[in-house]
């Protein structure tokens, strides 16, 4: 293994309660920058909850209590001087169901630029951003003539790619993906995975997945969670070939899940 890369995300002693239910128990996780890290575990183990801590989107619901530290590129996200808006610019999120905004393709891609701009960005900047972002996710050729079409009318695969594309103009450092392929077919899944490989290096990518085969083929490192605890976190091939914890071994063999 190479020298330890800089951390994209690190947590220490992270606990989270929904009301009285403890969903995360003392999670210590270090996600390396520039790699794809997969979070696996059975339903209800807290992997999506953990993911949603990192852009603090969990806080939408009342009665959520969080303790411990979460650092994104070394900066604690609960520090008083951290702006939620700036945090969410730096930490992009892709959801389980593709959720492009009910606007045009063009407006979806520039949405982030518009809301974060101090004053109206000139059209040339926006046009350029759209072409760049759509090219990066491989949609430009298909959609260059349909930029004004409604994004909600696209194929699911295109919608999900668009959801990734709209993060890129904001130059995020971290991209969180919550089962991004679960609504897609085989082709769509392959396309999104290839896109993840293409984006790797520039971004810290953290992906929650139910699909162990996907974790195995698409991630560099893999973290296994169970009942709110982080059980094991290592190189993906290590986790699948030589799991150190018997619970991990049983899960990846499919004894439960």
């Amino acid at each position, binding site marked *: 293994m190479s020298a330890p890369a800089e951390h994209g995300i690190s947590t220490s002693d992270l606990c989270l309660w929904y009301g009285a239910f403890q969903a995360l128990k003392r999670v210590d996780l270090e996600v390396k920058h520039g790699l794809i890290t997969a979070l696996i575990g059975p339903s209800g183990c807290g992997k999506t909850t953990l993911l949603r801590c990192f*852009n603090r*989107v969990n806080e*939408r619901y009342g009665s959520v209590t969080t303790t411990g530290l979460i650092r994104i590129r070394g900066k604690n996200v609960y520090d008083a001087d951290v702006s*939620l*808006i*700036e*945090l*969410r*610019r730096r930490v*992009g*999120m892709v*959801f389980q*169901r593709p*959720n*492009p*905004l*009910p*606007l045009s393709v063009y407006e979806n891609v520039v*949405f*982030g630029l*518009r*809301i*974060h701009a101090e004053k109206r960005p000139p059209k040339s900047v926006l046009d350029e951003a759209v072409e760049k972002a759509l090219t990066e996710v491989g949609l430009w050729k298909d959609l260059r003539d349909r930029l004004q079409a*409604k994004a*909600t009318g696209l194929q699911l695969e295109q919608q999900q790619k668009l*959801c990734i594309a*709209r*993060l890129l103009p*904001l130059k995020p450092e971290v991209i969180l993906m919550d089962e991004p392929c679960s609504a897609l077919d085989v082709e769509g899944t392959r396309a999104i995975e290839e896109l993840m490989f293409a984006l790797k290096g520039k971004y810290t990518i953290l992906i929650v997945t139910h699909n162990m085969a996907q974790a195995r083929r698409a991630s560099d490192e893999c973290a296994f969670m169970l009942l709110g605890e982080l059980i094991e976190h290592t190189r993906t091939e290590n986790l699948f070939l030589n799991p150190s914890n018997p619970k991990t071994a049983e899960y990846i063999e499919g004894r439960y899940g």
Partner: protein
Amino acid sequence: MSLPRSPERPAGRGRLAVLFEQAIELLIRLCGISAIVFVFGIFFFVFREGAPYLAQLDLGAFLFSSDWYPSNDPAHYGAGALLLGTLSVTLLAMLMAVPFGLGAAVFVSEFSAPRTREVLKIVIELLAAVPSVVWGFIGMSVLGPLIKDVFQVPLGVNMFNAALLLALMSVPIIVSIGEDALKAVPDSYREAALALGATRWQTVFRMLFPAAKNGLLAAVLLGVGRAIGETMAVLMATGHSARIPTSLFDPVQTLTATIAAELGEARQGSEHYQVLFLIGVLLFTLTFAVNLTADLVVKGIRRK
């Protein structure tokens, strides 16, 4: 295995049961169609009462002249001032009700805590339950003197007074339909916008309004329909004077109030009587156009 019986007589059912089923179906069908029958029936009878005057009607003068002197000899039936009265009061009412109503809808749907929301919805619906004659009474006895004092105008019952009442009457409709439209926007869109770093206001203006625009437009149009058709409150609060208004505080007279005030005095079958029915037809056309637009707009939502 036995052969299936004919579909008209399902196994195990007597002839009577089948007949009963058909009778119920017929009854329900009639209920459904009756609405259409009633609407056309009303239009037909209103139109029939007014039709004899059509032969001598000068449409230009009827629509655009402001000479409304039904008891003069010869009488003048220019409904222009009345039409303008209805349109101006409605427009002024909407200028007040739309921002207020949509703002309230956004607050109720997006910003209020669940308990506040429930209380607000009940109170707003209560506002819709106030009878219009009570509104008219408030206009005459509370708003009128107040407007006279505050704006230093000679007459308290005027266009502004009536528009204020109409605004208060249409706000509940705009709020409740507008809130439905906002609630219909999937939560995943809000989450998407927030996760991109939008503030709540940016989420409302840049995502929610475009997403719910059809429903919000329908809410506004239904509010307009309410305002155009309102009679008693405007009869009491406009000042009821058929003139072209030149300021917000001039008295006006609306189409609806004219019919309500004069139909009782007009001899049945007289010219005046027939013209009042034609005004009814005009009003009917106006509200029909507004409702149809609202309908088409709402259909537009479902198609997407």
